[in-house]
């Protein structure tokens, strides 16, 4: 059996007027939780739908669980669990009826009530879909994906639009899936979600992977440990800022500066000295630990949610 759950090379998906995926390479290992990060329109969902066998690629090789969609579709469908971004189930179907219906499609699968318990919907078992909250609907979608006992789970923006508590509940479900040894591939544009859940992430922009690694690796490699942001009412020389001790990179955003640095305690005193020397008045200064959001900004010059 292949070590890889997904192997994808040179994937291209082009429509009449737009290239959604533009030569994307991806390898996902068995048992890991893998995140595709990127802004809306980056090509995450298209990539996922090609991997799920719902879209045919324009070019490129795709292998899922060691099989290709062309000859392994029936075999693959029994081993994948999927949530799509915008699916709405039937309004007047109860939670239990929906999960039972999905269970009936799989020759082998899990017990319906057990799966409802896994996503903590026991109390809503007999409630109609239309009566559920957004978070409960999303958990039901995950239950429908789990009831076929999948080896590989695809979750497309599982927590978009949910309140913080619902997000945390879903995170627990995903963590439990991972603990059971299932491979999970999810897309998100919440960086905290990716840092929390994913073993590895790929940052996707304009249909390509622009960075790949564990969240920590990416942050340290691309950004550094910390970010110092400040605003000063004076013209400052970027080259002089870049030369300050411990500075990895200098970014300007809306008149403010962001320095990515290895060690705040070395850089900040030097920065203050530099500002004094230039006669600049400091309006604002803050520091935070670098996040994947900073990785994305460093790589593209844009924010994820723009």
């Amino acid at each position, binding site marked *: 059996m292949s070590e890889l759950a997904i192997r994808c090379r040179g994937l291209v998906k082009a429509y009449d007027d737009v290239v959604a995926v533009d030569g994307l390479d991806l390898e996902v290992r068995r048992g890991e939780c893998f995140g595709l990060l990127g802004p809306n329109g980056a090509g995450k969902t298209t990539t996922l739908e090609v991997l799920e066998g719902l879209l045919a690629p324009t070019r490129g090789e795709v292998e899922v669980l060691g099989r290709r969609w062309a000859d392994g579709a029936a075999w693959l469908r029994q081993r994948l669990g999927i949530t799509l971004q915008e*699916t709405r189930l039937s309004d007047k*179907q109860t939670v239990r*009826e929906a999960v039972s*219906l999905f269970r009936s*499609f*799989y020759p082998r*699968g899990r017990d319906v009530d057990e799966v409802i318990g896994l996503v903590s919907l026991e109390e809503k078992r007999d409630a109609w879909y239309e009566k559920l909250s957004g978070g409960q609907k999303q958990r039901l979608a995950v239950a429908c994906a789990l009831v076929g006992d999948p080896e590989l789970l695809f979750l497309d923006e599982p927590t978009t639009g949910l309140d913080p508590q619902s997000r945390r509940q879903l995170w627990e479900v995903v963590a439990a899936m991972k603990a059971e040894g299932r491979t999970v591939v999810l897309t998100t544009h919440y960086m905290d979600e990716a840092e929390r859940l994913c073993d590895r992430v790929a940052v996707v922009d304009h249909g390509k992977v622009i960075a790949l690694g564990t969240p920590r690796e990416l942050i340290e490699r691309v950004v550094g440990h910390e970010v110092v942001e400040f605003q000063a009412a004076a013209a400052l020389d970027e080259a002089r800022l870049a030369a300050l001790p411990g500075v990895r990179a200098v970014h300007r955003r809306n008149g403010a500066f962001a320095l990515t640095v290895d060690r705040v305690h070395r850089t900040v005193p030097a920065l203050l000295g530099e500002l004094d020397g230039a006669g600049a008045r400091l309006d604002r200064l803050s520091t935070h630990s670098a996040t994947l959001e900073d990785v994305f900004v460093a790589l593209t010059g844009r924010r994820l949610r723009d």
Partner: protein
Amino acid sequence: MTDRAPSSLVELTLTRIRLFFREPSAVFWTFGFPLLLSVALGVAFRNRPPQPVVAAIAAGPGAEEALRAVVAAGQKGAVLPVAAARAALRTGKTDVVVLPGSPRTYEYDPTREDSRLARLVVDDLLQRAEGRRDPTAVAEVTVTEPGSRYVDFLIPGLLGVNIMSAGMWGIGYVIVETRQKKLLKRLVATPMRRSEYLLSFVILRLLFVFLEIPVLLGFGWLAFSVPVHGSLALLVAISLVGALCFAGMGLLVACRAQNVQTVGGLINLVMMPMFLLSGVFFSASHFPDLLQPFIRVLPLTALNDALRLVMNEGLGLAAVGPRLLLLAGLAIVTFAAALRWFRWS
């Protein structure tokens, strides 16, 4: 972990049945509306006892005798000044104006059925009152029985319309709604057999024929004593073939449409001509000869005609055979086309 594999066809069909009965508007349009319609039309067009004719007799010599003869014969009349009598005829308040004298003059409107009838009835009763003897004795048998009334014509037509609209809306609309919700896409991402998904809709339609027939015909029988002259089994068979045909048409309108507005428009586009032309509320023979070949190949015409041949005329398979073949052929063509063009995403 369970290895028990419940039948997905059974689950899909159960889902369809549950969702139907949980949608009050679907239940109303399928069962309630045809019943209301049959009550309204059955009452509006019920056969009334024969209405008396109304004669206005111009005042003058002989007017009172004439009025007595009219009233004695069970008809209605009044003596009025000539001008008032003519005004009453013009405004439709009376059917005929009688000017007594010699010759006795009838003023009436020959383009009005009631008026022509009144002229004949009033002349006949006055001549008799004056002593006319008929050369030949006549006897009469009157026929007013269940089976030949408007409501007897209407009930099979309503059953046909019911089978058509339940197929078109119940399949066409529901499938497109499922597609619009992206639920169809989610379903085809599972190992679900696509044929079973579509089959569950067809099974639902066939099962519902066994509800629609008892509800409509049972109601017609209880409320209006509408009889079924022919074979009930043949009636059910015709309804099933009709349901299959309109299931195919429902699938066909649903096979590409991406949203419910589009499919709603398509369904109305297909159903409206049949609703008007296929002899639901009145016989299709009222339309010009030029339209008849077109009307005859409409599936609802074939279905309504077949239902009426069995229900009203008591005919058998031989009489309805060609119409059944037309429905079955259309079912095959529409299913084949729908499956060929069906979009799952």
